[in-house]
């Protein structure tokens, strides 16, 4: 017997659904202002380091527009260790999201929906877990992982990113706004808890799951201190560390650094766009406004 989630019916398009062009202009303006520093970063990545600094004064379009556009920074960067590190990062992060989402979704469901003694304490446990700054526990954790033989392993990089208290919290908030009647109806029909969770709650939680996936992904993607101290094998090192190596003791290659920063930002940005497009429409009542 299948459980059919009750989705709000999509509204018919009305005349008042037409695009609001003045507000669009405002949105474009706000987005442009926000993007200005990022644009400078991008244009810096297309120039050699000396031109980045040589073009700063006096104020002119030359600050943003490069004199000569070249992808040398990118080719040099990816030809070095950054290329491999980029792939390692991708692998680690996708693995973390895949495992982490399952772990966090199930935990959030238990905390939001199921009734059991100690629920409050378990939730407090989850919240407190993300309040301790990672730098404070990095070295004790690395000693732990070292004794478990997890240094220089892929799982050693993935594991700390799986139990993401913030993602659990986010999902729990969302699950709590799903009307309890849906679950009750499903239970009456004889559905088991996993069935309710994966067959009903998950399809209704597109946006929340997308956001939590981004949360887990970005947390792992930007992770620096942890890979630094648990991985000594250069073949397993991750992208942010490779990026830091554009600054050596005697020369800071800003051009390559900016190129790496752009490369690293493209992945989560595009991921966000794609995930929102694909899954963002699934929801309790995601009508157009």
């Amino acid at each position, binding site marked *: 017997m299948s459980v059919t989630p009750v989705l709000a019916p999509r509204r018919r398009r009305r005349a008042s659904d037409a695009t609001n062009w003045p507000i669009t202009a405002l949105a474009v303006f706000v987005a442009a202002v926000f993007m200005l520093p990022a644009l400078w970063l991008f244009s810096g990545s297309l120039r050699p380091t000396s*031109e980045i600094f040589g073009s700063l004064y006096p104020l002119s379009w030359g600050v943003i527009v490069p004199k000569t556009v070249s992808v040398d920074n990118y080719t040099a960067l990816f030809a070095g260790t950054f290329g491999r590190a980029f792939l390692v990062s991708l692998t680690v992060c996708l693995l973390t999201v895949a495992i982490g989402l399952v772990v966090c979704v199930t935990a959030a469901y238990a905390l939001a929906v199921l009734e059991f003694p100690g629920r409050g304490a378990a939730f407090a446990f989850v919240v407190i877990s993300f309040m301790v700054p990672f730098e404070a526990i990095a070295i004790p954790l690395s*000693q732990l992982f070292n004794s478990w033989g997890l240094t220089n392993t892929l799982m050693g990089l993935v594991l700390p990113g799986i139990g993401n208290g913030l993602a659990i919290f986010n999902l729990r908030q969302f699950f709590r706004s799903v009307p309890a009647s849906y679950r009750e109806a499903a239970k009456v029909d004889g559905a088991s808890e996993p069935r309710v969770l994966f067959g009903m709650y998950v399809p209704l939680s597109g946006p929340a799951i997308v956001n939590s996936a981004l949360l887990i992904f970005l947390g792992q993607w930007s992770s620096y201190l942890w890979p630094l101290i648990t991985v000594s094998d250069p073949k397993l090192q991750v992208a942010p*560390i490779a990026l830091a*190596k554009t600054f050596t003791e*005697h020369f800071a290659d800003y051009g390559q650094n900016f190129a790496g920063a752009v490369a690293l930002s493209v992945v989560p940005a595009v991921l966000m766009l794609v995930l929102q497009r694909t899954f963002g429409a699934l929801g309790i009542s995601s009508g157009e406004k």
Partner: protein
Amino acid sequence: MRRTPLVLGALVVSATVALTGCSKGGSDGAAGGTDWTIPEEDPTATIQVLGILDPVKEHMQEVLDAFKKDHPTITVEYEYVPFDDLNSVLDARMANKDGNPDVFWADQPRTAALATRGYSADITKQFEPYFGAWDPAPKESSTFDGKLYGVPIANSSQLLYYNKDLLDAAGVAYPSADPENRSTFEDLLPNIQKVVDAGAENGFVFGQLDRYYQLEPLSVGLGGSAGATGDGNLTPDITSDAWVKALEFYGKLAADGLMPRGITADQTDAAFLAGDTAYQIQGPWLLPNLATSDINWGVAAHPQFADGEAVTPTGSWSLALSPFSDQQQAAAIFMKWMSVDGGGQYAVVRPDPELPASPEGKKVYFERDMFQSEEGKKAAAIIDYETSKTAVPRLGTVGYVEFEEIIGRAYSDVRNGADAKGALEAASAELETAWAAYK
């Protein structure tokens, strides 16, 4: 049911503490002690080396390949970490107390600090036969309490670079390249003003802005101490007249617009290579970059104060042996090869120029390409003079880490406009607190 959450919580916490309890500890203590010698025959071993040089970009790989040729039975696993992260990585690795790394890059002024923390092993006995191979200053810097804790692989000095085009545009004479008759800061000041008035973006820049390495000569040149006195150099001495005068000079340069605010030490070379800066004090490592740029550059001797002494920065890296190393003898062979053999193979073999810590190495160094141009020859003569006559090592103290950080912040505050005396007094108080742990 209020007790259940507490019971659950206690169970979880005790389980995790039990987990951590039985996994901490690892291998305990030093692997070999100090009573061993460097063998005549190479053992077959693998050693881990932790360094801050990029194998490809900074050509460390060539060095490792050369070692492999000379010592085929010893395999070196070299780990490269970003320069800013060396200390965090070292902390984490040392906490594991295993043999990774066996050898690591150690900043010479940190010798005492590393030794007292138990990070580096006493290698006096093993390297005593080779003490004569090194220049006295780098060797002293690698020694603490009469014992050797590191082998120097490099040294450093500083030159005054200038942009000839910017100076010509202001009608200003070039500073003197003769170390015996060097320019004084007092002479330079009006010239810097002229250059700035003629449109140079940055008049005068210390390459390593706000860093003790770079700015120590200002205080010591005026007669001040290296920064501390007393037993073990643990009594701050940065509020003397010389120190205050030196920092007032530094702050005034910025306040008068002759030295920029807001730019960091990482950005100074890029600015000079972009043609933004008229005068810059920097190390010899800028020479290869200048050769490939289109800057019309010249080189002069590090300036001094008119009523002071000529003092220049010095010191660089040593290699230290981890007390937890499980391959001490192979590690020592590597260290000897890098710092002693043939003048120190590290500096001799490495394509990127590095000022060696030995007289024999320096001979080879001055034959490098970058010293063959007209300005290059002047640079070579200046470096030779400075390393022999005017180099002053940094403060030797167990509390060096705290000192370098705190004084760095004082320099930065003064450059941004803080009163020199006030900043130094605050720094002195902070040092007293920080050094209490060592007394």
